[in-house]
């Protein structure tokens, strides 16, 4: 947790962690500072909590409520979870519930959000099978003991890890490359046009000598694109010009970030026009 003077503009940390202030020194005895000086603003960590019964099963929620640097949002089922994760940026997801069901829900979420930090609150004894699945899916298991102190320690540890985690996007755990090809044969525009027309959701990865870039689709619309420091439409425009390299498509991987807001048809027309203009310049 980092403390910052309230005069500085506070910002929410994105899932990518790109806007995190790196060179800021951590204050010593930050806890005491926070308790005694309420005018200090705190950089918030945002956590989504999936709990089917948040009114009566609220031990973990009560503990998380104590942390002023933590903003929590509660959802009750999986569809609400996915909708919330699509709509907003969260640093982590905590799933609370009966062991096997919670792990199943976590596995579902993992398939769509590969870079999200997920933890499952595990009631009762740890089972080898559950642990193996959790390890495979990169899901953290937080044991729920009867003692509030232990539960507090494990939740605090998880939240601290979120704060120190650089949050770089990870490759899919179980990538399903439903389309692989070469940009010499099909241009990026052609491939994207085909995928958008068939209302696909997933991630395109383009690899060329210039570097790697990613375009995320959601139900036939471009949601997010990234190439180096470029994001959004600028990144799409750059990828449009590539004529060499490879690409593959992973179905079902959805970006939490949204940097492209225009429909695909608009993007296509604009970028083809730009490309024509560029080609005209070349011919001149």
């Amino acid at each position, binding site marked *: 947790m980092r403390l910052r003077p309230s005069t500085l503009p506070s910002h929410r940390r994105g899932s990518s962690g790109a806007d995190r202030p790196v060179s800021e020194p951590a204050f010593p005895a930050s806890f005491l500072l926070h*308790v*005694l000086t309420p005018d200090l603003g705190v950089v918030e960590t945002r956590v989504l909590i999936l709990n089917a019964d948040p*009114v*009566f099963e609220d031990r973990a929620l009560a503990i998380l*409520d*104590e942390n002023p640097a933590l903003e929590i949002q*509660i959802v009750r089922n999986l569809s609400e979870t996915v909708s919330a994760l699509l709509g907003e940026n969260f640093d982590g997801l905590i799933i609370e519930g009966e062991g096997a069901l919670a792990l199943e829900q976590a596995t579902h979420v993992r398939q769509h959000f590969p870079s999200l930090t997920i933890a499952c609150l595990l009631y009762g004894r740890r089972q080898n099978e559950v642990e193996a699945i959790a390890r495979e899916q990169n899901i953290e298991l937080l044991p729920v003991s009867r003692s509030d102190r232990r539960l507090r320690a494990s939740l605090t540890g998880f939240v601290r890890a979120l704060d120190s985690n650089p949050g770089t996007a990870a490759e899919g755990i179980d990538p399903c490359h439903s389309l692989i090809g070469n940009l010499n044969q099909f241009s990026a525009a052609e491939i994207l046009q085909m995928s958008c027309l068939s209302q696909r959701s997933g991630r395109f990865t383009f690899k060329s000598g210039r570097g790697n870039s990613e375009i995320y689709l959601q139900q036939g619309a471009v949601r997010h694109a990234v190439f180096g420091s470029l994001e959004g439409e600028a990144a799409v425009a750059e990828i449009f010009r590539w004529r060499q390299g490879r690409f593959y498509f992973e179905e079902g991987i959805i970006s939490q970030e949204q940097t492209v807001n225009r429909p695909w048809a608009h993007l296509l027309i604009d970028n083809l026009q730009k490309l024509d203009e560029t080609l005209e310049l070349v011919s001149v």
Partner: protein
Amino acid sequence: MRDKKLETKLRLVGLQLDNWKRLHDLITYGLDKAKPIISSEQERQFTEIRGNLLQETEYILRELNIVAEVSGKAMSVLQRGVSIRGVRDLPSDEIRRLETDWNAAFTKLGLMQGQLKARRRELAEQSVFDYYWTQVRSRLFRRLASAH
């Protein structure tokens, strides 16, 4: 400073309001004659929200000390609104009563949420030391006043 009980109340009132809003969305959909199709998924959502409210309302209202004011109206809404189709088939005076009762429950909960947020803001401006010093000072004054 953060007060545990206040945070719990705020969480509970937030969850309750969220459910009342969703219930209202579905009731409004049911009453909209321009939308003739009610899907089984919508009915399922309605039942789930109604179930949550039936389970939690009494407990939350008691925690917020407003059980006497709101409980009757909340239960009236939940008893009248059996399903989206059921709401659509209600006579017009029953629909009006349903809307009035929903509004009464929602208004009280909204007010409560506002008051709790204002209290949280007040507390956030105080440090732990300030808070306890104010408490000690007021106790001292009370003792002095009673001694005289």
